[in-house]
């Protein structure tokens, strides 16, 4: 168990101006140190009532549902401003599932122009199990100005996915669980279920492990990869970051995912030759 260090307020006001450049995943020690220095905006994406019951110190609340209600870039930038996030400020996002909700929010922040966003390596439940500090005080910060700077390279829509299906060097990755994938998926997609991305309490495995698992699939390091999942881009958001961790530079998320694809009546690949659902022990 980690020893608790009290959260101290920083005496040097200048420190806050030197912004740390975050890695894809921020570890617990790094986050605690940033919190002590008041040099980070922590974003809790769980439900509002969970946040009220206790959260990581200094964290603001942004339930995923609120972001998804309207995730137009202009609206998301307004959210950033409302949460008191400035352009360079490090932002660390966490959830209580297995990183997928946090990933969807982090991806959206980066998409609208806040690249200095990271996922916390663990979930809130594990944070508590480690005996780390929490607080119940609801936090608000003075409104900031944040520019809108949409990063189109991170995003794919149905039309883009459709075109990619037949393009060399582009690969579709379905991050739903195996049985859902077997049942139906977008033609040409490969399955990297979200279940294989995390391990031992970390939302994502170590970079070299992820790299090995993806290389095992024979995916070329310079491939362009588009991830999607069932409905709103959470599981595939996590897969997006797993691929980034593994060193893939050109990754895109299709946030509207299979739900939209089906509603547009686009072709699906199905596998009906086996009764694999009957293997479930439920």
């Amino acid at each position, binding site marked *: 168990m980690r020893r608790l260090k009290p959260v101290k307020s920083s005496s040097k006001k200048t420190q806050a101006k030197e912004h740390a450049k975050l890695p894809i995943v921020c570890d*617990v020690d790094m986050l605690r140190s940033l919190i002590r220095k008041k040099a980070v905006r922590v974003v809790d994406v769980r439900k509002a009532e969970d946040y009220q019951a206790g959260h990581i110190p200094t964290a603001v609340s942004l339930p995923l549902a609120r972001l998804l209600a309207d995730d137009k870039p202009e609206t998301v930038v307004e959210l950033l401003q409302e949460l008191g996030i400035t352009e360079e400020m490090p932002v660390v996002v966490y959830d209580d599932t297995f990183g997928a909700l946090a990933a969807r929010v982090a991806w959206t922040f980066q998409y609208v122009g806040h690249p200095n966003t990271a996922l916390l*390596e*663990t979930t809130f439940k*594990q944070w508590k*199990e*480690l005996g780390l500090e929490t607080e119940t005080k609801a936090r608000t910060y003075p409104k900031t100005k944040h520019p809108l700077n949409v990063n189109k390279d991170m995003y794919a829509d149905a039309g883009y996915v459709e075109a990619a299906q037949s393009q060399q060097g582009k690969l579709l990755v379905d991050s739903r*669980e*195996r*049985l859902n994938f*077997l049942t139906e998926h977008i033609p040409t997609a490969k*399955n990297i*279920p979200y*279940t*294989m991305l995390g*391990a*031992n*309490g*970390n939302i994502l495995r170590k970079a070299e492990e992820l790299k*090995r*698992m993806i290389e*095992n*699939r*024979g995916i070329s390091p310079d491939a362009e990869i588009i991830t999607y999942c069932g409905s709103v881009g959470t599981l595939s958001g996590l897969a997006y970051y797993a691929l980034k961790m593994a060193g893939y530079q050109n990754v895109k998320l299709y946030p509207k995912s299979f739900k939209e694809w089906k509603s547009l009546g686009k072709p699906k690949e199905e*596998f*009906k*030759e*086996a*009764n*694999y*659902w*009957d*293997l*479930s*022990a*439920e």
Partner: protein
Amino acid sequence: MGKSRVSAVNPKQKGKYAPKPASKWGREEETEFFANRVKLFRQGKISEDDFRRFRLQNGAYGSRLHAGYSMVRIKVPGGEMTPEQLEKIASLSEAFSIGSAHVSTRQNIQLHWVQLEDVSEVMRGLVDVGLTTREACGNTVRNVMCSHFAGVCPDEAFDATPYSKAIARFLLRNPMCQNLPRKFKINFACCEKHGLVRVADIGLVPTIKEENGKQVQGFRIYLGGGLGAASFIGHLLEDFTPEDRVLSTCMATVRLFDRHGNRENMARNRMRYLVHETGWEKFQKMVLKERIAVEMTTATATAKMYDVKSEEDTRQLPKAPRMTKLPMLNEHVNRDSPAYERWLHTNVVPQKQEGYFTVFITLGAGDITASQLRVLASAIRDFSTEGVARNTPQQNFAIRYVRGTELSEFYGRLATAGLANPGALTIASAVGCSGTTSCNLAITNSHRLAKEVQRKFLELGLDTDDSLKNSTIKVSGCPNSCGQHEIATIGFFGGASRIGGAMSPTYTMLFGGSAGENGELGKAVMRVPAKRVIDTILKIVEIYRNERAENENLDQWIGRIVRGQGTASIKNLEDIKNALSSVIQLPPQEQDPDAYMDYGSDAKFTAKTARGECAA
């Protein structure tokens, strides 16, 4: 962040005793090698056939009509598993499979629908906890089985477990077993009642013989048995084989099979065909002669690799506390009895060690979820003095060395995860191979049918009827017997028949099979549409109840019918066929299209199969 590690050690753990160290079967370098072979295969640098052989040799079986996925078969010699192994399999099933694991009928654990490219990752995880998939499929010596009662069975001569592990270790990766004509199966029993010794290439029953006033340990060894499209019952090699000749007997048998087995005709290349075609008496002489050659030519260093001593569990387990009142295992129960009493009656048996009990976990056709595996692992740590589980050929788990005084608490723990269902040791615990859920050869969904039988029987409380207790239901999805239908009291194997012009899933029903040293093969009775199987069994039970002799159990009555010795209205198999003819009738397809579909499917039935993966 070791979250799983933190929770893996239960702070309230009662295991005051050193946990049993896991046997080391797996090797790290083989995982890397497998990953590289997959890459070469994908790059077209290895032929499909060569890769297939390699893949099977390493325990990855192709999935139904989808070669990009594998069923990963984890070899578990003697079925013995530590809590750490169960937890690892839980995580691997979540990460790379479908979130559940499956107990096979030969004490393997199977993970289904694993992407071929992830198989090496599964292997890597297994090596961490001492397990391997090596030689779990293909033309090799498959998992060596040992009765899950070995060591606790009141009727056994001695514990066969260390012998089974020693022979498994000797033969694993042994050059003499790397290119056999076909697969090879070795099964150890504890006593004459338990174990599958007559339906294996080599079956061994421990026994003690007095020689010159000295007690000598040894085995009755049966050769040339096996289940399949054509099944045979094994032959007794000699009255007594002393333990110091077990290795040479096994080696001699494998060598003869390797030399004389049919390498041309895949349909007839199991050793049982060789024995059958050679004639038993001749084959017996060949084995006895070959054994002398083996004994004369085997280097001492080689023979020392068979080391029974090193496989023995030398821990002194504490005595169980004396109980003032024994649990009411034999009290009469019925469907309305309290759940705990019903469970005691159908899932718990006393061991030869006073005060200790073996508890069975009822699974549905061997399926167990990742979260159930974790609960099971923690329960084993807290309640089994032995500290391990054994999986059983009835596709359940046996947890041994549970103190009688703690049965009720143990039950409570299991119940939190749906692991305390009754019926494990009764007719309700139907066996089902994987069938069309994952196997290329399957015609029907035997897996689901077995689960439906179990569900219905528990609902009706048939597990509480002691006259049915010794009877078994086993279902295979094709004639190849992975569901061991030929040693069931009532067995079924899947097929396709035209009924009123419509192709329909059907099962051939067999009567009167049994396991153990006096095991017999079932006799085919009739074909039954898949959706009529349950009603048919229930009708048989009804007829039996009307016609049985006093105190006669269902399996005894069925045995009598098979022999044509019925004394009431049903005299023989012909009579039972007639009596069941109305139950198996289907209404016209337009009236009830569902009756013509298989379980788990809402589409018109078609019999689709592909090349089997049983032979490499």
